[in-house]
């Protein structure tokens, strides 16, 4: 589930963010407790706590004293906006670089994208 290439708390934070974007945890609903994450992913509770604290610092989660951690209002929207900002650097730039290596020009690439989009819709 979790690998050792990236610090575990960062992987867990990313996983929780993905779950929020996917709608698993809606705004103002509770996320699992640190101990539940620890048992589920078989990780140290302090590591799970670090992931949750990171998301609190980023305004994604907030703490209700004595109750638990909740998804901040608008968290999913915020995360989607951040992902849109990173789309170019994380996906487009590497794709263009690989296309250049393979000798696929920008117009060929655009045509490939159109074809893929059509066949993806059919599936």
């Amino acid at each position, binding site marked *: 589930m*979790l690998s*050792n*290439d990236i*610090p*575990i*708390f960062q992987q867990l934070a990313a996983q929780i963010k993905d779950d929020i974007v996917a709608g698993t945890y809606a705004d103002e609903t509770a996320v699992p407790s640190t*101990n539940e994450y*620890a*048992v589920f*992913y*078989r*990780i*140290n*509770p*302090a*590591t799970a706590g*670090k992931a949750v604290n990171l998301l609190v610092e980023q305004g994604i989660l907030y703490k209700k004293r004595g109750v638990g951690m909740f998804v901040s209002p608008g968290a999913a929207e915020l995360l989607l906006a951040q992902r849109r900002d990173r789309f170019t650097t994380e996906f487009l730039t590497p794709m263009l670089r690989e296309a250049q290596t393979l000798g696929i020009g920008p117009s060929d690439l655009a045509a490939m994208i159109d074809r893929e989009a059509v066949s993806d819709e059919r599936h």
Partner: protein
Amino acid sequence: MTNAIEIRAVTRRFGRVKALDEVSFTVPVGSICGLLGRNGAGKTTVMSIISGQDRPTSGRVEVLGATPFEHAATLSKISYVRDNQRYPDDYRLHHVLRIAPEFAPNWSTDVASELVDGFQIPAKTPIKKFSRGQLSAVAIVLGLASRAPVTLFDEPYLGLDVSARALFYSVLLRDLATVPRTVLLSTHLIEESESLFDRVVIVDRGRVVVEEERDDARELALSLSGVADVVDRVAAGRAVLQSTRVGGLKSVIVRGPGDSDILNAAALHGVQVAPASLQDLVMAYGTHDEPATTTKEGVRA
């Protein structure tokens, strides 16, 4: 944070052999700390001393603020099952489960029965006829059900299959959430266990070579691999902890974090670079040109 275990300059000699040489480290209350190192590095000797079953030749050990040796109040707060624990010849599981609570004021019958069921420990077979895995299972039952404030596990998974190990991890983490305690765990299954730890201590030939927060241990060393002479060029200026060469390819573990200089050099020369894993570190520190002076325990399952 206060420390559950404090070891200061502990040396333990067995005749002419120094099993521990000026060992110092601490384990904070509530930590799950990995004690790692090769066979014969001194892990079991350290655990025996922490649990008051042995005394240092020199130096000081404190567990929850007191010296454990012959100190009943402290000993009742420590759980330690040796990996070669022996039981009286006619003992069956129920004998052990009846006596254990006498030594463990926090004993949980629920945890014990959950683990006995989960590990499928035979009730009627005498313990002296148990397999290695069944003995390990008994040791885990005692260690977890004791709910001792300081719990030591020495190679808890010898002979245990993957499902039994998964059960151990789950019950450990779940029960620690219910009754917090400090855990020191030695193991050779480093990759599988490292996510349990918040802290690691690596010993080699009786000395502590690494004592770090688990996440900070990533900064200690880098693994570089690629074409041999290029790898050497990128590694130049760094202390090489270990190096492996196969044909024209080479991989090295070098000391120090991945700063921009070495990352750029690696990218420029097409050398693969990654933070050294805990397993890399244990191997790197355990590699010696000269044979170790301490006695080897030999290879075990």
